[in-house]
């Protein structure tokens, strides 16, 4: 059997606490998903199949934020059983929207929302990288479909995918949008990694940086512009949407928490 094809790569898709929108993006790839799925063996994907094989896995995609202790343990086990571990979407890569709530605030809200007798399961909302080493982060809220395909194709071709070296501005210009900064509207596009196609700005919404900070983001330069037409509370509001659990946010605004 000398020339037999190499065994297909075993892929697992896991989801922790989140909206599952990034998995919906995967399904929305339709024919492209089938093409990808044909080149690998999806041995575990709770959302769409009952088949659930144990590891080891060649590639695991993990969506969501590990909020319960059980989820944190599963993440650690998954790390041990996976060759190439990918964070899928901003909840996984940045803690994103769930990260808006700090650990301290969680206990207040457990009581307010669930009442005094309730025993909470949640520990904290932190990105996957707070617990284990992650091999690649596919950012986005939701992830951009083209980015999923790019990363998977590169991996299957034996390449190690790399993040985008340009900011959202680059794609925003290509999309023909008016610059929000020139219109005196807060925008985190200049410091944010591209790959999203500037989809939010094209729709008229702000960029809150869900693709994560680009390499060498030069945040100081952006702040200098932002503070010409906005105050620190407004700027912090933007940074706190997806980036609250980043070291950069903590450095800029963290002191206030005390």
């Amino acid at each position, binding site marked *: 059997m000398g020339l037999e094809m190499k065994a297909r790569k075993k892929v697992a898709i896991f*989801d*922790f*606490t*989140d*909206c*599952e*929108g990034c*998995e*919906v*993006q995967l*399904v929305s790839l*339709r*024919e492209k*998903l*089938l093409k990808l*799925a044909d080149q690998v063996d999806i041995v575990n994907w*709770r*959302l*769409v*199949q*009952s*088949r*659930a094989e*144990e590891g080891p896995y060649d590639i695991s995609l993990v969506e969501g934020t*590990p*909020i*319960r202790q*059980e*989820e944190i343990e*599963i993440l650690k*086990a*998954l790390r041990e059983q996976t060759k190439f571990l990918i964070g899928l979407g901003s909840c996984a890569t940045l803690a994103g*929207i*769930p990260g*808006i*709530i700090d650990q301290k*605030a*969680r206990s*207040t*809200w*457990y009581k307010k*929302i*669930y009442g005094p*007798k*309730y*025993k*909470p*399961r*949640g520990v904290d909302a932190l990105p996957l990288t707070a617990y284990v080493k992650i091999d690649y982060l596919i950012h986005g*809220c*939701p992830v951009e479909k083209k980015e999923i395909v790019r990363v998977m194709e590169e991996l299957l071709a034996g390449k190690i995918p790399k993040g985008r070296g340009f900011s959202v501005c680059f794609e925003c210009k290509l999309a023909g949008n008016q610059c929000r900064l020139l219109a005196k509207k807060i925008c985190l596009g200049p410091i944010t990694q591209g790959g999203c196609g500037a*989809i*939010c700005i*094209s*729709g*008229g*919404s702000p960029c*809150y940086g869900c693709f994560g900070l680009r390499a060498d983001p030069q945040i100081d330069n952006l702040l200098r512009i932002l503070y010409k037409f906005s105050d620190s509370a407004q700027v912090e*509001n933007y940074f706190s*949407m997806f980036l609250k659990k980043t070291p950069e946010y903590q450095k800029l605004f963290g002191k206030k928490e005390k």
Partner: protein
Amino acid sequence: MIQEDFITKIEGHGRLKVNWAQNKVQLEIEEGERLFEGMVCGRPVTDLYWITPRICGVCPIAHNLAALKAVEDALDIKVSFSTVLLRRLLLDAQMIQSHVLHLYFLALPDYLGLDSGTQLLKTHPKYFADALELKRISDLIADVVGGRGIHPTTTTAGGFHKVPSSEQLTKLKKEVQKMEEAASGTINLFSSLSYPEIRHELLFLSQTNGKDYNTYASQFISSNKELKVKIENYRKTIEEKVKIYSTAKFGYHKGKVVMVGALARLAIQADKLGGEAKDFYHHRKLDFENPYQNNFAQAIEVLYFVQEARGLIDEILGKGANSAIANLPKNLVPKKKSRGIGAIEAPRGGLYYEIEVDANGLITEANIITPTVQNLSSIEESAQAVLDQTENLSQRRRQELLEMLVRAYDPCITCSVH
């Protein structure tokens, strides 16, 4: 163990805990607490409709629209007629996206003895082609009108940041027409399945307006019995209970379980259907005492929402979409502390938002009741009915029937833990 034993092919993390010896079942919801109602407090009102779609990736448009309505109610903002038409079109896209994902990818494998919906490609290529076509075009409507398939980018308080051109809408209409055949095929398929024969008489709730099968502009909460109350009384109508074994609350009406969603909407206002969907409804009898038939009800609705989407595009083309971007409110701050309610029918049933906004435009309180919160109680009770009515079957078959039942309800666990 690398994973917990959650029910597969549902949105979110839950399991049925069966005590076979005592013939008792409990629905345990184990999604981590998400605390959205706390998360939005202290933030500007504009953040509400940006953040809360992230409650659910399967029905984000529904959350976006309910949040917008709550903000507009609190700030006393009136929206233009085209804004309403465009939002209704978006909501139709949402209904089709969500129903189709559930019907073909999560529920259908149960009835055809498959492990996953993608296997349909080989076993039932015609069904699979219909599913992909419905998914593609409903995603396209969301893209063209909302800016993206999920988590909209064009919507804002008072209207839209951006609206599609007449050329885009004309093209979109041609695509929407292509869905009609696939939607009829979906009804034929789901009326031909043999649903497990389980009897469970249910109290159905749905938002209504007394005029049409409109899921965006409702005024009342109605039941299949006598209930008809104003939306503003939603808190009195739907009580939420915290259960020790669940991170989601369970909804009740006067202590009784309720079912919301497609089957409930049809039970309460099938007479408001129109066109071919109405004909199908009359020729293929739905059994309202069998919760498994929620799948069949969703299939009928898919065709209805396809028809409605087509009609709405015509209407928007006639009236023009531009009033939706004109006169957007600049300053989203109320004169004094205010409250607002926003309610719509989401794919899985009535969705309720209520906020309090202070004089700085910051949210000081938020309350959200999702459809699945209301359905959790009836899922648990229906599951008990399955156990009670299948004692002569094998444990394995009963387990299968229980999982099928949960899927038939199309629970959105992530919505229920918001």
